[in-house]
C-alpha cells in the first residue's frame, strides 16, 4: 500500500484536484509578479493611457514623492486623529453598553430596533446627515467612525458575555467566589475573545466610514486627498492612497492580534 493512499484528508478533497502541497506561495507570487509586469508594460508604453491606469514604477515614484513632500504624513496624521477620536470612545461605549445589555435583557429589548437599524443599514448613507448635524470639520468624521465601529463591538460583547460557560461561573461559586470575583475570573476572560473579534471587525467598518465622510466633505485627510486627485484624474496618486489606507487597516488589525496575544493568550487558540 502506498503512502499516498492515506494522504491527509485536506489533500484528498477531490480525486481530480491537482495536488500542489507547497506550491501555494510560489504560484501566488508568480501570478502577482506577472500581473505587475503586464501592468508595467501596458502602462509605461502607453498601450492604455497611463493617466488612467498608471503603472507600478510610477506608483512607487509617486509614493516616495508624496512621502518626501510631507503631503502623505500630514494628511494621514489628520485622519489618524479623527479615527482615534471615534474609535476609542466606540470601544469604551460598545463594551459598557454590551455588558449592560447582557446583564439586563429588558434594556437591550428597549434599544434593539435602533441597534438593528444601525447594524443592517448601509452606514455610509448616514454620512450626509452626520455632516449636516455635526459640521464639516473633525467632529463629523469622529462621529462616523464611532457609529460604524460601535455596533460590532456592542453586539460581540453582548453575545460574548451571554456565551460564557455556565460551568465556569458555577466553578467560581463553588470555591466561594464573590460576585466581583466571578466577573473578574470567569465572565471577563470568557467574553474577551469575542469582544476582540468585534473590535477587529469594527476596524474595517470604521475606516470605510472615515474615508467616506472625508471624501464627502473635508478640509484635510486621506479621503480629502483621494477626492482631490480623482477630480484631476491622477491614477498614480489614487493607487498610493489606496495602498496607504489598506496598509493602515492591515497594521491596526495585526497590532490588535498582538495585543490580544499579550492580554488574553487563550483567545487566539483555534
Amino acid at each position, binding site marked *: 500500500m502506498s503512502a499516498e493512499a492515506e494522504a491527509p484528508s485536506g489533500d*484528498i*478533497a*477531490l*480525486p*481530480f*484536484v*491537482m*495536488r*500542489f502541497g507547497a*506550491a*501555494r506561495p510560489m*504560484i*501566488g507570487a*508568480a*501570478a*502577482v509578479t506577472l*500581473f505587475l509586469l503586464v501592468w508595467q508594460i501596458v502602462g509605461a508604453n502607453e498601450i492604455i493611457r497611463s493617466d*488612467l491606469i498608471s503603472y507600478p514604477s510610477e506608483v512607487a515614484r509617486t509614493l516616495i514623492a508624496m512621502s518626501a513632500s510631507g503631503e502623505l504624513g500630514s494628511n494621514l496624521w489628520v485622519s489618524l486623529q479623527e479615527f482615534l477620536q471615534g474609535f476609542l470612545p466606540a470601544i469604551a461605549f460598545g463594551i459598557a453598553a454590551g455588558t449592560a445589555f447582557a446583564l439586563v435583557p*429588558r434594556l437591550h429589548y*428597549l*434599544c*434593539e*430596533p*435602533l441597534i*438593528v*437599524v444601525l447594524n*443592517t*443599514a*448601509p*452606514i*455610509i*448613507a*448616514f*454620512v*450626509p*446627515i452626520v*455632516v*449636516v*448635524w455635526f459640521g464639516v470639520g473633525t467632529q463629523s468624521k469622529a462621529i462616523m467612525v464611532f457609529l460604524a465601529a460601535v455596533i460590532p463591538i456592542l453586539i460581540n460583547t453582548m453575545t460574548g458575555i451571554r456565551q460564557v460557560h455556565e460551568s465556569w461561573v458555577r466553578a467560581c461559586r463553588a470555591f466561594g467566589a464573590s460576585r466581583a470575583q466571578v466577573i473578574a475570573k470567569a465572565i471577563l476572560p470568557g467574553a474577551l475573545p469575542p469582544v476582540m473579534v468585534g473590535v477587529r471587525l469594527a476596524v*474595517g467598518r470604521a*475606516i*470605510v466610514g472615515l*474615508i*467616506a465622510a472625508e*471624501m*464627502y466633505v473635508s478640509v484635510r485627510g486621506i*479621503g480629502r486627498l*483621494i*477626492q482631490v*486627485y*480623482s477630480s484631476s*484624474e491622477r*491614477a498614480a496618486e*489614487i*493607487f498610493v492612497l*489606496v495602498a496607504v*489606507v*489598506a496598509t493602515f*487597516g*492591515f497594521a491596526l488589525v495585526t497590532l490588535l492580534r498582538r495585543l490580544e496575544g499579550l492580554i488574553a493568550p487563550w483567545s487566539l487558540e483555534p
Partner: protein
Amino acid sequence: MSPRREQIILGIVGTLAFLVVWEIAARLDLINPIVVSNPSRIAAAFVAQLQSGEIFADLGVSLVEFAAGFGLSVVVGITLGIAMGLNRPTEYAIDPFVWFLYSSPLIAFYPLIVVWLGFGFATVVAITFLLSFVSIVVNTVAGVQDVDPQLVRAVRAFGGTRFEVIRKAILPAAVPLIIAGLRIGLGRALHGVVLGEMFSSNAGLGYRITFHAAHLRTADVFVPLTVLVAIGLLINALGNALEARLQAWRP
C-alpha cells in the same frame, strides 16, 4: 406575558420614546428643528415625496443598479469560486487578488472606476459588483473544498462524469456556504449602490440623500435614508428565511 412578546413590546416602547423625546426637544427648540429636523417634519416630507412620486423614481433606479451589480457578482462569484475550489493552481494564482480586494478599502477605488467607466449607471454597477462578489467567491471556494470526498467517490464509483460529480455531489453540498456568502454579498451590494450613487451618479436613493443634504433639507434626507434602512432590513429578513429553509432541507 411570553418573553418574545415582552421583547417586541419593549422594542416598540423604546422606539416610540426615542421619537417622542426627539419631537419634544425640537418643539422646545432644545435642538435646531431646521438643521436636525424632527419626526413630524420627516413624516410630512415622506408624504410629500410619496405624492410627487420622487421616491419611487429613485427607488427604481437603485433597485435596477442593485439587481445588475449583485446579479453579475452572483454569476461571476459562483463560477470563479467553483473553478478555484476544484483546481488548486487556479486557487493559488487568484487568491492574492481576491484577498487584496477583500481587505482593501474599495471605497477609495471609486475615483478610478469613475475615470474608467464615466459618471452614472456603469460605475455604480461596477462598484456594487466589486464590493459584493468577493464574499461570494470566498464562500464558494470554502463550500466546494468542504465537500465530503466520500460523496465524490460515490458518484465516480457509479460512473459519474466530471460534470455529474460537480452537479450531483459538489454543488448540493456547497450550497449552505454559498448561501452564507450570498447573504454577506447582499449587504455589501447595498453598500456599493449607496456609495456609487452618493459619489458618482445623478439618480437613485444614495444620490437623493446627498442632493437634499446639500440643500440643507434635513427632513427630506430622512426619506430616502428610511427607504434604504427598510431595504437593509428586508434583505436581512430574506437571508434569515432562506437559511431557515435550508436548515430544514439539510439532512
